[in-house]
């Protein structure tokens, strides 16, 4: 259980516009396989900024980021995209489903992009993920036609499609009511405990954070706990 999935070494980050401001200072931490980690902190403390760096989408930082033991520093844009595709699953605050596709296709897209399995197999796997989350009956509905809570569950299914090393969530329950928040939390918990899925969730919901296995608390760009 000590296999390091993700490791941040001395990460510093500045915003340059309109004046140079240091937003992250000496971030050092690691996430092991099977961890269910919450990153909390007040609004503006840099937790989302950190998540975008960890997710490889933001490359403008100092320090070292290792995913699966590999450094992300020297990788090119296309290689980083490949890492995101293969090793990271995302769940955002806003659902971010593609309204042009039905639910099933939305879930399948990252799998088709990975191109590891033939399309039929990807479809089968997508159906399994939807079943696991109890939303298989929505499969053929258009993404715009399902409710907010259901959309977030579809997004989780999509995050799972390539069996990622880690799932990252950016306020995944921030836009949901209490009941749906609980459903989403239960799914995360189930993923962590039953499937040993590594999860890194940014949230300012203390109630949510406290139920996870480990809390990283941030303030003014530093990790304080």
């Amino acid at each position, binding site marked *: 259980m000590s296999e390091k999935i993700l490791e941040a070494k001395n990460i510093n980050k500045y915003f340059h516009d309109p004046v140079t401001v240091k937003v992250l200072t000496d971030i050092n931490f690691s996430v092991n396989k099977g961890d269910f980690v919450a990153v909390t902190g007040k609004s503006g403390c840099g937790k989302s900024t950190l998540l975008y760096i960890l997710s490889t*989408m933001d490359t403008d930082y100092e320090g070292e980021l290792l995913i699966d033991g590999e450094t992300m520093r020297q990788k090119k844009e296309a290689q980083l995209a490949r890492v995101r595709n293969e090793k990271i699953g995302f769940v955002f605050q806003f659902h*971010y489903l593609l309204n*042009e596709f039905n639910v099933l296709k939305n879930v399948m*897209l990252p799998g088709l992009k990975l*191109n590891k399995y033939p399309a039929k197999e990807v479809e089968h796997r997508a159906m399994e993920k939807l079943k696991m989350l109890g939303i298989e009956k929505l499969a053929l509905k258009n993404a715009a036609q399902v409710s907010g809570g259901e959309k977030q569950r579809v997004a989780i299914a999509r995050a799972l499609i390539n069996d990622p090393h880690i799932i990252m969530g950016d306020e995944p329950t921030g836009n949901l009511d209490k009941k749906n928040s609980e459903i989403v939390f239960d799914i995360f918990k189930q993923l962590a405990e039953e499937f040993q899925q590594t999860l890194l969730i940014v949230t300012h919901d203390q109630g949510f954070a406290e139920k996870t296995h480990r809390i990283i608390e941030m303030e003014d760009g530093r990790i304080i706990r």
Partner: protein
Amino acid sequence: MNLKLIISIAKSLLLARWKQTLVAAIGVTFSITMFITLLGFMTGLNDLLDGLILNRTPHIRLYNEIKPNKNQPVNLAAEYKNGYNFIQSVKSGNARQEIYNSESIMETLQKDSRIAGLSPKIISQIFFNNGTIDITGVVNGIDAVEESRLFHFNEYVTTGNAADISKVPNSIILGKGLAEKMLADIGDVVQLTTTKGERFPLKVVGYFQSGLQDFDKVQSFATIATVQKLMGKPASYITDIQVKLKDIQQAPAVAKEFANIFETDAEDIQTANAQFETGSFIRTLISYAVGITLLVVAGFGIYNILNMMIYEKMDSIAILKATGFAGKDVKRIFLAIAISIGFFGGLAGLLFGFGLSAFIDQIPFNTAALPTIKTYPINYNPVFYLIGAVFSLITTYFAGWFPSRKASKADPVIIIRGK
């Protein structure tokens, strides 16, 4: 790399915005339609106008020009060889317009593999006597069969039959304008006076209408034998040999060669009718310019619509990138959208363009100047369709390129944060 996926995503984005897509595609369709129609019509017209002159003009004309002799005797004299001789008041020599040795020249030409055919001709000035006035005119002695085969003579004989001049002895075909001046009907006899002063009656068997008024007011046609008789010349007397080549482009070179071999003057079609080529060239250039302008405008339409689509789809671009689509993939998706607009719009444009051309081709177009033309002329050259197809793809590719690049450079962090 996973082209199928990219195309399927592009297709879904397209169909989700099918109204905008349709507008963009209609822009391309319209411009390609106009491009094809314009070029087809313009080239049809060009061919018609060129045909007016070029079809009837020999590719090479062998004749003797009346001009001063280049080799004046003083230059041949050995004692003046080293000096520079000034000669004043040089006159054209007693040159005959007849082509010497015409029979053997024609025999040699017949054997030349570059030649499609030849027809001998006699051109002579004459006067038509019409009551008290004499009308200057030109009588062409021709071989009606060869002249029709090579230079479409029969097509311009609007009344009567070209072959009649060989069947009816002492007959003549008059230019329409000339006939109107003399009020000469078919079957009438007109009086001719040669430059030597001899009078001849000839029977009118047809009218000739070329479409060039000035031409029709002076020209008339008879057989070679008739004209030889008029002029009192022997059967070998020929003033012109008209040659039609298999490849018109060779005319200038071949003309030079013949001038040397046969010691006559030789005029090629390009030199004789340079102004027609220039005119055709300019008209074609204008058609292309207009066609391409239309396409570029359509390209801007596509550019706008893609730009709008990309702004609308920023969220989708962000999520595609977050879930592992590289900038390159996003770029390909939008390029695929642009090119499919170009492809389908262009294809429809080619079909509509063909349809519109075919329609114009049916519109009656009768004019006294162009007796052989019944409808508007259209050229269906497949090259235009090829250019249209290629250009529709190229313009849409470039119109899509900039928006696609913008999409590929979009930073998902900024988009996701912005929410």
